[in-house]
């Protein structure tokens, strides 16, 4: 009943907008296309939508992908009927329709992890935290770190690592990136690294994807070893901070919405069209204070205030 109500409301708004005239020449009509998911996942998309609306200063059109009808043309027709100027897709399902929609509309992809080769010619912001931001926070929290070691799966993370190497150089950090093909190899690599690390001049970066990390057995071993040897582990996965990694960056959904809206507007500007994938810069920091205190790290209250989430000592 409620989606139906919104639908009617949406329809009225769609019909009214062109009558307003003039305004939309400056602020385009932006649609978001996203899959039908349960809470709390749904809140991620809703927060992004709120950020977009804040940036645009007007409502965006919501188009829900639910699995009951199978007509792509219907989506495109609806977008056309509603006089949409630019489309932002969210999530994996959004990404899956992006290509079809891009034949008719400028498209921006968001709220999913994307490699540039997946979406050639399209613009988007990947959910993957930008390594620059990761390293900036690392330097801020633990200035002693000189070297960062990462074990990664080249099938998923290669382009991100290239990006990271550049970012590390710019910050006078040495990035030692070791590719791994499977869990078994990565376990051996990790164990070797754990033997080599002696102090907190070397930090261990746990990337996001599962292929390089066995969460059940290897992760606790790495975190225990880090505790005993007093070295820093940071992660691209928020949950690792709860388990004992020093910090992680996670998406600022509202901020991401604003950036996506900015990119959407840019797609309509003459000569402004962006055709690549950015890594996420709209990030919040989560810190494990128990780990920080164990490492003897002391933060100013200014730094503490920047922590969006802290995990307390048990």
């Amino acid at each position, binding site marked *: 009943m409620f*989606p139906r109500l919104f639908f009617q409301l*949406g329809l009225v708004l769609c019909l009214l907008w062109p009558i307003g005239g003039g305004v939309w020449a400056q602020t385009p009509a932006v649609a978001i296309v996203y899959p*039908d998911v*349960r809470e709390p996942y749904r809140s991620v998309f809703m927060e992004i939508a709120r950020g977009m609306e804040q940036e645009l200063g007007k409502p965006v059109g919501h188009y829900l992908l639910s699995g009951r*009808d199978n007509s*792509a043309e219907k989506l495109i027709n609806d977008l056309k009927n509603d006089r949409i100027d630019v489309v932002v897709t969210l999530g994996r399902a959004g990404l899956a329709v992006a290509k079809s929609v891009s034949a008719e509309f400028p498209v921006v992809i968001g709220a999913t992890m994307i490699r540039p080769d997946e979406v050639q010619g399209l613009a988007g912001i990947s959910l993957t935290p930008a390594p620059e931001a990761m390293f900036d926070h690392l330097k801020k929290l633990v200035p002693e770190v000189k070297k960062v070691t990462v074990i990664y799966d080249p099938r998923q993370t290669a382009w991100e690592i290239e990006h990271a190497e550049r970012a590390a150089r710019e910050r006078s950090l040495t990035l030692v990136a070791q590719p791994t093909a499977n869990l078994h190899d990565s376990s051996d690599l990790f164990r070797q690294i754990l033997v080599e690390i002696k102090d907190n001049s070397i930090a261990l970066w746990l990337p996001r994807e599962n292929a390089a990390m066995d969460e059940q057995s290897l992760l606790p071993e790495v975190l225990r070893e880090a505790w005993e040897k007093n070295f820093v582990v940071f992660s691209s*996965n928020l949950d690792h901070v709860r*388990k004992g990694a020093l910090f992680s960056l996670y998406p600022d959904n509202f901020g991401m919405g604003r950036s996506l809206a900015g990119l959407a507007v840019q797609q309509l500007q003459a000569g402004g069209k962006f055709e690549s994938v950015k890594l996420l810069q709209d990030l919040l920091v989560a810190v494990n204070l128990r780990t920080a*205190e164990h490492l003897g790290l002391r933060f100013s209250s200014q730094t503490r205030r920047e922590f969006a989430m802290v995990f307390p000592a048990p």
Partner: protein
Amino acid sequence: MMFRPLLLTCCGCLIGAAAQAQPVSQEEEERALSQIYGTEEMVSIASGYKQPISKAPSIATVITAADIKQIGATDIDEVLETVPGLHVERNTIGYNPIYTFRGIFSQFNQQVLMMVNGIPITNSYTGSRSEVWGGMPIRDIARIEVVRGPGSAVYGADAFAGVINVITKTKQDIEGTELGGRVGSFDTYDGWGLHGGEWAGFDVALAFEYHKTAGQDSIVDADLQSQFDRLLGTSASLAPGPLNMSRDNLDARIDLSKGHWRFRGGLQHRSDFGNGSGIAQALDPVNRYASDRWNADITYFNNDIENWELTSQASYFETSQEIERNLTLFPAGTTLPIGANGQIGPGAPVTFPNGYIGNPEVWERHVRISQAFAYNGFQQHHLRSGIGFNYDSLFKARVSQNFGIDPATGTPIPSLPGIPLTDVSGTASTFIPEVDRKVAYLFLQDQWNFANDWSLTAGARYDRYSDFGNTFNPRAALIWEARYDLTAKLMYGSAFRAPSFQEMYIINNPAQLGNAALRPETMENVELGFDYRPTDSLRLGLNFFNFWWKDIIRFVPDANTTTSTAQNAGTQQGYGTELEAEWQAADTLKIVGNYAYQRSRDQAQDRDSGYAPHHQVYLRLNWEFLPDWHLSPQAKWIVGRDRSVGDTRKPVADYTWVDVTLRRQNVAKHVEVAFSVRNLFDVSAREPSLAGNPAAIPNDLPLAPRSFYGEVSIKF
């Protein structure tokens, strides 16, 4: 916002589209999002769907709204029963809960501080939550924080055996609108509506909860009137007869916040309140109590100033205890010996055709202002300090009765039918004068991180009471982060329990008299605790405690009369251990359990203090056996309840209480339904009645038989 639910599969629309276009199921989509955050729990927190963990203080037990759903609770008592070392016993008066922490039992449960959003809801007349408590509904609760052991160094009076802080939902916790209803056994009908949104730049949360029930109707076999009947050859007792547990409750709350400011207001309205097994332990189907509890606070919080956190708060709380229908202490036809003062006492037997009726009513208001500071500018020290002032006033007392002395004539009030009750309010014959109490306090605490992995927290609070004087309560905690997966804590704490107005000022009572010279009860507690996380999915907690409870306030019989006067008389010493475990056995299966053991001795009598169980075991499973289908069975074993001094009855029988809740979430995305059975095996469970020889209610206080509840809610 325009909203178009596009009926489209990604699969279909991609016919002929790019190679990467594969159908994406809802599960895949959610898994992809979980990958960036780690778990669904983390998505909840990061998307603001739930309060961040950082907001939860690191204290003994935090029960969230999600836990409450698994417990299948409809009232806060059912939630608190799951806390290790806490057993909810029953007062004969209204079957009000007695939150018995670690063997610390008293009829009015003044040794537990209960707060809503950090503000006490204590009524000074009884020193507890009021005789017309009537329970607390759970839909507007975001979480409950329970501290076991004393905390007066932080919270002041009555943070003695334990502290219960109920945090209500804010806009962020509700986010949208929820409407729901429940029906259940004993003619129970509940309804609720919650809304969280924005209005004129304010974050707004509104909650409305309604509860009506005839109440459980277990039979009390014999009561105090049965004894009188035997002695005097009358037959006035209504026992065997059912408990009187009707309730008609309305709870409404508002929460507004903007920037540094937050305003909260609330009402707990109670009416048609049946008094359980009787105020005087004699069944009373006539009486109905009522109560209105209004609260409001305005809070200013600022941490924008470098290294400083400031919290300023002003709050108001008004609470009443009112009579809707005559409080019939002893039933119609009772014959009692009445003394020259018109009260029960040595004298000729008098028959009361309408019963022995006394209708005491009280109204109180409490005003509190406080200012707290935190300073984090030192590398190794976190300082907290604060000052505050409380004004507690019993500003109106009213009573009408058919016994005692008529102040107009100076003669005993007649008890004949047709003669109205005599209003003795504000006269020498009243039951309590209008009194007040002023409290000023100051506290200071330092958390000193003197080495990596070591911290020492030391603090103290000084309270100055206008009636009984000063009290000073220190505490200290040494915490050692021993290993990656192990934390150890050694703690010392002290506490005081302020005498209630009833204990200090009650007069003209046939049995009990107040004593204005009372001192507060005191408590000292030493505790050793461990928190061990052997794997990511298993958390274990273990502690050992030892406490000394002194200057216990008791009514001690006076010489050559039938009355007793409140005195600081008694010492209790106790020790015990609590073990708790939380295990995520599989993605879809979580097991929570705890075991608590305690022994408490009355020092003067050198025997068990009675009432509280020596052993408690609790076990709960939450199994998501199909997506969105949750089955949560739980069991609690209550074992070993000795009798207290002067009670020759056999120990209270042990019992095993089992509940099951089945919940289906996300029906058509917005709807949730649940079905619960409480006391699944219909065991005859009883809580101890008050001691006596013979005991007034010899066969103890029966708990509800098997009962059923079904609920449905819609969120949009």
